[in-house]
């Protein structure tokens, strides 16, 4: 590389390095992060008649833009796959992650389309500032019945805090999928599982989202 280019590269690297160093302390706390994206998503759903009418594309777009950047899909998939993860090729791992993530997006979008006038209440976080793996606890207050527990597990990576597990009504998502993944992989291998997920996603894509019942 020519000396000028080298200097340029060094300068750019220094700027990048210092920006990231300075950016780190102002990284959002995990509970603030979850509160923020939670509020953004709920407000968007409540304000948008299209979404409430069941416009799938809009909901998917909302999930993809507001939530997915903060979800660690590879980690989720790895944990759900358990010991089978190590036996998968990098290509299989990538495909599996992709399909699992898509399934979760469809499922989450389905849940979002049923929001009417629920409110979310966050509970105080029980962890120390030095923790890199925390649990954020909240509950959704619904009009009928007891509140629905909704907890998140986040871990801190080099790109900040990311969600790697969600708990609804006491059941952790990763744990619930673990045994399905395990039996599917035992039956038809990782490719069989990938195919099964892909088929399900194709099925969900063609199914119209039900408009919420009154």
């Amino acid at each position, binding site marked *: 590389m020519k000396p000028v280019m080298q200097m340029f590269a060094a300068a750019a690297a220094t700027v990048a390095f210092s920006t990231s160093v300075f950016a780190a302390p102002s990284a959002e706390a995990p509970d603030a992060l979850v509160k923020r994206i939670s509020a953004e998503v709920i407000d968007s759903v409540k304000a948008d008649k299209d979404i409430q009418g069941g416009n799938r594309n809009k909901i998917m777009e909302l999930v993809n833009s507001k939530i997915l950047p903060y979800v660690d899909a590879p980690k989720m998939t*790895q*944990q759900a*796959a*358990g*010991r*089978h*993860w*190590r036996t998968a090729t990098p290509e299989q791992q990538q495909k599996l992650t992709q399909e699992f993530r898509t*399934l979760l997006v*469809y*499922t989450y979008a*389905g*849940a979002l389309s*049923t929001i009417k006038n629920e409110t979310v209440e966050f509970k105080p976080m029980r962890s120390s500032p030095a923790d890199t793996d925390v649990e954020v*606890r909240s509950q959704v207050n619904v*009009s*009928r*019945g*007891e509140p629905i*527990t909704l907890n998140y597990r986040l871990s801190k990576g080099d790109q900040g805090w990311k969600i790697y597990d969600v708990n609804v*009504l*006491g*059941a*952790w998502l990763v*744990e*619930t*999928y*673990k*045994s*399905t*993944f*395990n*039996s*599917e992989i*035992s039956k038809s291998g990782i490719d069989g599982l990938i195919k*099964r*997920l892909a088929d*399900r996603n194709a099925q*969900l894509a063609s199914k119209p989202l*039900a408009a919420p*019942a*009154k």
Partner: protein
Amino acid sequence: MNYTVTLSRLRACAAAVAVLGLSGCATTANNPQDPLEGYNRAVFSFNDAVDRTVLKPTATAYKKVVPGFAQTGVNNFFGNLSDAWSSVNNLLQGKGEDGATDFGRFALNSTFGIFGLLDIASEAGMPKHNEDFGQTLGKWGVPSGPYLMLPLLGPSTVRDTAALPADFAGDVWKYKEPTNWRNIGAGVRVVDKRASLLDASSLMEEAALDRYEFLRDGYLQRRQSQVYDGDVPRQADDADAGDANSQVVPQPVSPDKK
């Protein structure tokens, strides 16, 4: 329809299912929490068929047709009755404050809430708890034991099934006379419960690759969470997952070293 006739029909159904289920027992159980998987799957198919043909359509129609305030009234009424039993269980678990709150809810809603039709206790800030005798046993240290799918009653565990007679005894509505009112009420309660689970069940249809497994694993975790009131001690997470079937619930009482 009289109560004893229904009961004997129920027993006949259960017997039929048991026979069907035993034939499925040849399947190798590969989940330590579900050694009775063959039987459970058979009962699950049965329950699913009943749900699809009878319960879900009824609940869907109920949700669509019955006016909102009436549905809320029904929900509140039966919720109020269950607060009485929750209170007893909270006290049995040593949770005095929660027990007192539930009793307070029951007293307030039964009187000023017009026999429980209005839930003014919730508006007054008294949280609702959902305790049953199975959770009490769990709190006392009884492990849940294997997963057990009950005919018509749905998912349960060995411990919680053993606790059912206590729950039936503690069910205030059971003592309602005359019998037809009691049965009608019991029917309405079931439909109301199913109606409140309609959204959750459609979500499960979409999310689950295998509905039986999804229901089982979700249910067992939820049950554990209920016993611990949301504060389940976290297991050492298998980061590289040495064992794909990591235990979430405690080991069964009698380890099956067959």
